[in-house]
């Protein structure tokens, strides 16, 4: 450096400017506390979220994707040639939707999402459409044909009289049929009707694929407030507390006193007559109903000891009261082989057959057994944690706590539990979802959850 300075000095025409000092002279040594404090106060403040920032609503899906039921087309048909299709999504994956989804239902290989908006499009469907369970989806390649597999959430056109006033309250999906409940226009049914599960007369040799037919059901004793689909039957619960059923009845799941097909929704009698039912549940061939006094009634298939506490027969075709002494029951969920109920204290009782959630030793029981609340995060440290909702898939159970955490257990068919592992889960296991889970819908091999973001 000294050499350079001397050389510069030799070229006298240039003004002497030092190479070392670039820019203005700064402070020497480490900055003092006062300078630090002043620099801190002068720093700009960034705002990432204002006071009125609202929590966003999201939808997460996971499970088997080849049927298109997850609604992400890149899992089935990747967008780049070198990418491989994703057969199973083992952990929750966010699904982008245009509207806030208020109700979701998973069927056997297809999904329905509904929003309570007053726009024209209120229901979207994705997955299997071989029996028009998602309505008619016109194919873009050939305008005369429809899609057999719908890979993306596609709007389902409902024949509403007042499309800009009616709201969709709830959707439900069975094996090959679906039900849409609206607030003022009754229930819309679509899909397979070979057992009368859509509530209309069975037509011989009817072709269900690419059918435009969506049937509307309005004749009930009062407004329908809940629709539930079993495997091949449908249950309707009205405001007055009565239950109607239609569809296949060979296991007595219609509860009408016979084992035949019913194609018109008929009111159920038996132990339910006169009882104000507040919730109905079914997914396979067994059904459970909860009354406002906390009693539970069951009918349908009992091959797996679901109703063995009242009867030895394997099919029960009239609703029977299940005399369990476990406290007042708030909610019930019926799976394919196992059942679960939620009591007022927030405890879960399970019975039936299969992986019930109490370790690998408990495979079947006819009497309900409680799942210890410590498995759901309860401890002396957090004693306010309790279960708020219980849902069932065909061989899985899902429980939502009041803190918004989702616990799953059961058979992990094609990754449907969402734990990230492929093994069956014998006791409740947390699913990591980036948000507070508000609702979850379980299917045979996939699940959909409605989530609110944290902030």
């Amino acid at each position, binding site marked *: 450096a000294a050499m350079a300075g001397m050389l510069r000095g030799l070229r006298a025409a240039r003004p002497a400017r030092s190479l070392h000092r670039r820019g203005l002279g700064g402070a020497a040594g480490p900055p003092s506390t006062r300078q630090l404090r002043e620099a801190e106060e002068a720093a700009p403040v960034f705002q990432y979220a204002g006071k009125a920032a609202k929590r966003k609503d999201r939808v997460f899906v996971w499970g088997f994707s080849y049927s298109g039921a997850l609604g992400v087309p890149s899992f089935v048909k990747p967008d780049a040639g070198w990418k491989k299709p994703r057969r199973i999504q083992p952990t929750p994956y966010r699904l982008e939707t245009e509207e806030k989804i208020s109700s979701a239902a998973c069927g056997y290989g297809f999904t329905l999402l509904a929003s309570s908006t007053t726009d024209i499009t209120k229901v979207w469907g994705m997955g299997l459409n071989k029996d028009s369970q998602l309505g008619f989806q016109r194919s873009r390649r050939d305008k005369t044909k429809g899609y057999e597999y719908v890979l993306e959430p596609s709007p389902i056109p409902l024949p509403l009289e007042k499309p800009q006033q009616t709201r969709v309250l709830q959707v439900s999906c069975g094996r090959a049929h679906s039900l849409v409940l609206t607030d003022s226009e009754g229930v819309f049914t679509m899909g397979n009707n070979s057992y009368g599960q859509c509530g209309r007369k069975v037509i011989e040799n009817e072709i269900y694929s690419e059918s435009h037919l969506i049937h509307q059901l309005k004749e009930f004793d009062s407004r329908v407030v809940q629709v539930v689909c079993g495997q091949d039957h449908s249950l309707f619960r009205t405001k007055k507390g009565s239950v109607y059923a239609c569809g296949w009845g060979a296991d007595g799941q219609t509860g009408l006193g016979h084992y035949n097909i019913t194609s018109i929704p008929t009111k159920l009698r038996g132990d339910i007559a006169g009882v104000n039912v507040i919730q109905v549940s079914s997914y396979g061939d067994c059904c459970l109903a909860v009354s406002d006094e906390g009693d539970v009634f069951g009918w349908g298939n009992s091959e797996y000891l679901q109703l063995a506490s009242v009867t030895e027969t394997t099919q029960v075709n009239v609703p029977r009261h299940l005399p369990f002494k476990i406290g007042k029951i708030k909610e019930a969920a019926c799976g394919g082989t196992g059942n679960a109920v939620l009591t007022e204290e927030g405890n879960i009782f399970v019975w039936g057959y299969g992986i019930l959630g109490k370790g690998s030793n408990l495979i079947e029981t006819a009497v309900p057994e409680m799942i210890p609340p410590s498995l759901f995060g309860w401890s002396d*440290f957090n004693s306010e944690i309790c279960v708020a909702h219980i849902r069932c898939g065909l061989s899985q159970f899902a429980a939502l706590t009041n803190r918004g*955490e989702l616990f799953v257990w059961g058979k992990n068919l094609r990754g449907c539990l969402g734990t990230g592992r492929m093994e069956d889960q014998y006791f409740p296991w947390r699913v990591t979802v980036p948000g507070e889970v508000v609702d979850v819908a379980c299917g045979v091999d996939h699940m959909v959850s409605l989530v609110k973001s944290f902030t």
Partner: protein
Amino acid sequence: LNAAPRRAPRQQIRFLPTPAPSGGGALELVPTRVPVLAEHPLVQGPRFRRLKIGAGHRLDVKASGVFVLGIGHGNKLLTDLYNCHLTKVYTVGGLFGKATDDFSDTGKLIEKTTFDHITREKLERILAVIQGTNHKALLMYSNTDMQTQEAYELAVKGLIRPMDKSPPIITAIRCLQFALPEFQLEIHCLHETQQYLRKIVHEIGLELKSSAVCTRVRRTRDGVFTLDDALPRTQWDLQSIQDAIQNCQLKVETEIEKTLG
């Protein structure tokens, strides 16, 4: 310590030649009790010249709280306590609105953000999620087969925890005080470092769409040793140390028996 009274020296029986009491010049062997000269204080010297002191779980410079030391035989107990993998409890204080490079409030400022949108409810939601994911990690790193009935039984009792090396796991976390911009958390954790706790505070700030720095980390419990057993600076003398060791002996023994069998 060396001024404390020592054990009396051992006595031995030796046959010493003494002149016979009956007269004459004959020498008799009479058994007498004499102290062993090898144990005489002037021969032996001070009893303690060096003390072996070992430290338990690390506590870094910016943190404070319970710090366990083992003296002599206690070093072996320290290893046993380490293998018990017991949880430690920290009180962590944080401040919203700032982000620094080393996550504490004495570091170089990187960013300032607003924090008036943060409520106690949002913070508790985030803490519930942190606890949930860490509980899952607790089960996963415990290396037990989830398909067995024993795993189910341990999980019900809450006794599953990793019994060998694992990444830091938080077993319980809750908010003690919340007064914007400050907040205090109580964290129960395993295998952690204090810098990890500061990082957790920073991440909580990020989750709440703001930023946070950690102002203090104080360990309130380390396994079986709580603040009540700990000696403050004014009590670092021999008597208090001896009393403290006496008091903790029983606790340590029972804990080691229970966990390691």
